[in-house]
């Protein structure tokens, strides 16, 4: 039997559409039917836009028929995280507060994908407003890990990772403030890429913490990741923190020779409480790099441990302001019994925002109040500077920093819900890249005996996505296994 379209890569789909070998409509239908079959089990999609997706596919086919140029992602089915603003459908952030919210505009990332002729199949689940590491805090629904129905998909972009892994989209868009693209990618066995801060516009992202928020793609191959980055990256006048650096063709960095590439392994990462299987597969990956001629360098990141603390302070402080607008005054769920202005705030927020969101808003407010501002917030900013410096020093000794994306594979539902600190620890290897702004990705490097994916975390210098993609591509081609699709589907 012929491989169904939903198992093909974005690159294969795009090429087939460009060359007129397949119609975008057939491709999109293949994904829609597959999602009909499996997403009831996975629960990635919160909104299915099948009809508009078919219409969009027909428009692309029409273009091809007329011989007009089609975009770089022509006919590629994409899923969007619930926190990414779209004029189509709702933009809920998986929060009760925004359960009926419709955005008047499209995020820049969405516009760029649309201009590249990608087709949106709908929106996918996430932790409420991006606060969580398991997608369990979503007010909408439960999303399961496609590899193990009793396990979480990770978060906050859990829906994005689960959809990519289960083949219900070829690419997904996620956001990453501390780990939210890379950790679910690691749990679900796909690639999650957080580019350098400023590479992809944040305009139209329901932000958590503006100085840490990143938009990025989740995909099944490194090449698809590069294709998506080509479309997504670039300056946006609507986001003054976006970078005006020229954007290279990222696909050209694939196939680079990695001989002589220096891969740094922080001793602090290996000394931590890594799960034995995770450690085994990460070390195996390092061996593969070494065998291919890369140089494995032992390095030190003394900031390890402090980075997570600084992250908690800065991210919650920024989000305490960033989420303040969700008050039910201009939009959102205003409590029907609120009689006074303070009522509108207190009652609407109490009813509309979940426990984790409230916890972090209170935490952030505390870190900024009175003397605490100096003791926590200002101190955390200083630590952030130290983290940047640590990485600068480290990147003088190596070109890539490697380690595990997470200390363990996907955990069972409910196992960390009552212990926020344990949940926050899911970010321990990933937050530094958000604090220091450099690019990082997670790529599958094996499966546990129980069949759960394990992620290899690679980081590179700011704006050096090419080295990162080159190394990941080499590894993907030589790692000696295919990730494939979960058998439960």
């Amino acid at each position, binding site marked *: 039997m012929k491989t169904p379209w939903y198992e093909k890569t974005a690159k294969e789909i795009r090429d087939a559409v460009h060359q007129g070998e397949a119609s975008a409509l057939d491709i999109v239908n293949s994904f829609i039917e597959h999602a009909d079959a499996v997403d009831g089990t996975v629960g990635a999609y919160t909104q299915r836009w099948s009809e508009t997706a078919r219409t969009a596919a027909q428009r692309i086919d029409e273009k091809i028929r007329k011989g007009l140029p089609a975009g770089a992602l022509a006919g590629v089915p994409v899923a969007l995280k619930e926190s*990414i*603003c779209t004029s189509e459908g709702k*933009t809920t*952030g998986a929060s009760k507060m*925004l359960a009926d*919210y419709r*955005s*008047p*505009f499209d*995020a820049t990332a969405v516009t760029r994908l649309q201009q590249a002729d990608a087709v949106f199949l709908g929106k996918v689940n996430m932790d409420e407003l991006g606060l969580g590491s398991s997608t369990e805090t979503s007010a909408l629904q439960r999303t399961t890990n496609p590899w193990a129905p009793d396990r979480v998909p990770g978060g906050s972009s859990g829906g994005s990772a689960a959809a990519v892994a289960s083949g219900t989209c070829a690419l997904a868009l996620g956001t990453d403030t501390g780990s939210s693209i890379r950790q679910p990618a690691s749990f679900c066995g796909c690639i999650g890429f957080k580019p350098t801060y400023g590479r992809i516009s*944040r*305009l*139209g*992202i*329901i*932000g958590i*913490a*503006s*100085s840490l928020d990143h938009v990025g793609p989740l995909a099944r191959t490194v090449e698809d990741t590069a294709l998506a980055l080509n479309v997504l990256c670039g300056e946006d*006048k*609507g*986001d*003054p*923190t976006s970078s005006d650096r020229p954007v290279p063709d990222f696909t050209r960095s694939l196939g680079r020779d990695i001989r002589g590439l220096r891969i740094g392994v922080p001793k602090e990462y290996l000394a931590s409480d890594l799960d034995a299987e995770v450690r085994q597969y990460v070390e195996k990956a390092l061996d593969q790099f070494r065998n291919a001629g890369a140089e494995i360098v032992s390095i030190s990141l003394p900031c390890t441990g402090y980075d997570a603390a600084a992250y908690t302070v800065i991210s919650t*402080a*920024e989000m*305490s*302001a960033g989420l*303040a*607008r*969700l*008050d039910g*005054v*201009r*939009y959102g769920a205003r409590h029907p019994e609120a009689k006074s*202005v303070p009522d*509108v*705030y207190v009652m609407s927020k109490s009813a509309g925002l979940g426990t984790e969101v409230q916890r972090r808003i209170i935490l952030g*407010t505390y870190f*900024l*109040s*009175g003397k605490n*501002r100096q003791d926590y*917030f200002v101190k955390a900013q200083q630590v952030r500077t130290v983290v940047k410096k640590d990485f600068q020093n480290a990147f003088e000794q190596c070109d890539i920093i490697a380690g595990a994306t997470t200390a363990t594979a996907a955990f069972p539902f409910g196992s960390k819900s009552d212990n926020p600190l344990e949940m926050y620890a899911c970010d321990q290897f990933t937050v530094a890249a958000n604090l220091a702004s450099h690019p990082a990705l997670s790529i599958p490097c094996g499966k546990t005996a129980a069949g759960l994916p394990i992620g290899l975390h690679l980081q590179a210098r700011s704006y050096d996505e090419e080295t990162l993609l080159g190394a990941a591509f080499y590894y993907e081609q030589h790692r000696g296994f295919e990730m494939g699709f979960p058998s439960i589907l």
Partner: protein
Amino acid sequence: MQYEAVIGMEVHVEINCHSKVFCSCPSAFDAAPNSQVCPGCLGMPGALPVLNRKMVDKSIAVGLALNCQIARSTRMDRKNYFYPDLARNYQISQDDQPLCYAGYIDVDVEGRKKRIRITRAHVEEDTARNSHTQAGGQSGIDFNRSGLSLLEIVTEPDIRSAQEAFAYLTSLKQLLQYLDVSDCNMEEGSLRAEANISVRPVGAEYYGTKTEVKNVASFSGTQKAIEYEVERQIEVLNSGGKVVQETRGWDADKGITVSQRLKESAHEYRYFPEPDIPPIVVDEAWIEQIRKELPEFPIARKERFQSQYGLSLYDAQVLTFSRAMADFYEAIVSAGADPKKAANWLMVELQALLSDTKLDISASPVSPASLAELLALIETGIINGKIAKEVLVEMFKSGAAPKKIVEEKGLGQISDSKALEETIRAIIEANPGQAADYRAGKEKLFDYFVGQVMKATRGKGNPQLVNEILRRELDS
């Protein structure tokens, strides 16, 4: 005990940047409610602020005009509080790194020069406008004002009287209007002044407890409110009481200040750097560019008017009070008019017409060029001053050119000596008695004949020519 007032002013000025400070919405004043809004100034999820560079330009210009230091590197901050008129529930403002700081302004208080130090001038955004007069007792919020560009200008507590406060506000407004950065309209809210007022025994070094008086609709109201508040505080202290730190409003009808709310001892705004806007780096070249484009300021211009045009101090002061008036004046002169005559006609005749119709000089129906043309008609003897005043009234009404009015209404002077001779001979013939008396030495009767000629020519006889011919005819 003798007390003195210690006053500091906080002025919020809406800087006209054509669009809002963090989005591209227009900033017109009287648009329909919520018609000038976008996701940005409504605080919608996902919207990001983009700093309007014009606002930075204009704020730097104000800073330079106020002799301020300009920060070479600064940033915006988030000021957090909850209120329905605040779209994001934080205001983007500047906390401890204002764009402009440590300046001063010299103001004239009844002929005495007073220097008032400027603590800082910082960039921020305006809030929306709440309105509690909706049907059914509901409140409405108009977000047209949300995100307008505000510059908050704060003085040191250098002001010692209501009169000085008035002089400060007047000079500040004059400067802002010269810079053309704001229309400074207090009624429309584009300039809002708050006074921090305390009193202390004369000679004391400490500061008394202050009250903040806000929501006054005019400069003179501010002066009265300060006068009242200073007296009130002195009375409180004299009767053994204590001044309470609070915000007080001005009740213009009763002429008193009224307690509005007790000020919490310390505001908890949880300021932190605005992560959505990169740091603002102002280099020397940027400042120099703005400095080069600064207009001539009132004091310098006044002095130049005296020396260059030979005007009196008073005239120079009146003509330079507003930039529009001074520009108008110089346009008349550069169109060829005599500087002194131009000053007179502008300050007296045109100003009277403007005052009657409550028009500002910038809205004058008579242009500087046509006023210069009118003065040229007098100069060349086509009309006399009396007729010219009538012509100006007509110009003001219809906007027509003076020459055209003179021609159409036949107002030109009779300078034809033959025609005048005939008229004059006829008058002498008709008044044989008066002519005889004049010739017999009653010289006063000469004026009688001038009057008769003017009557006959309906005032259009060229006065010089009339005199000449009359004397010749009577003396012959």
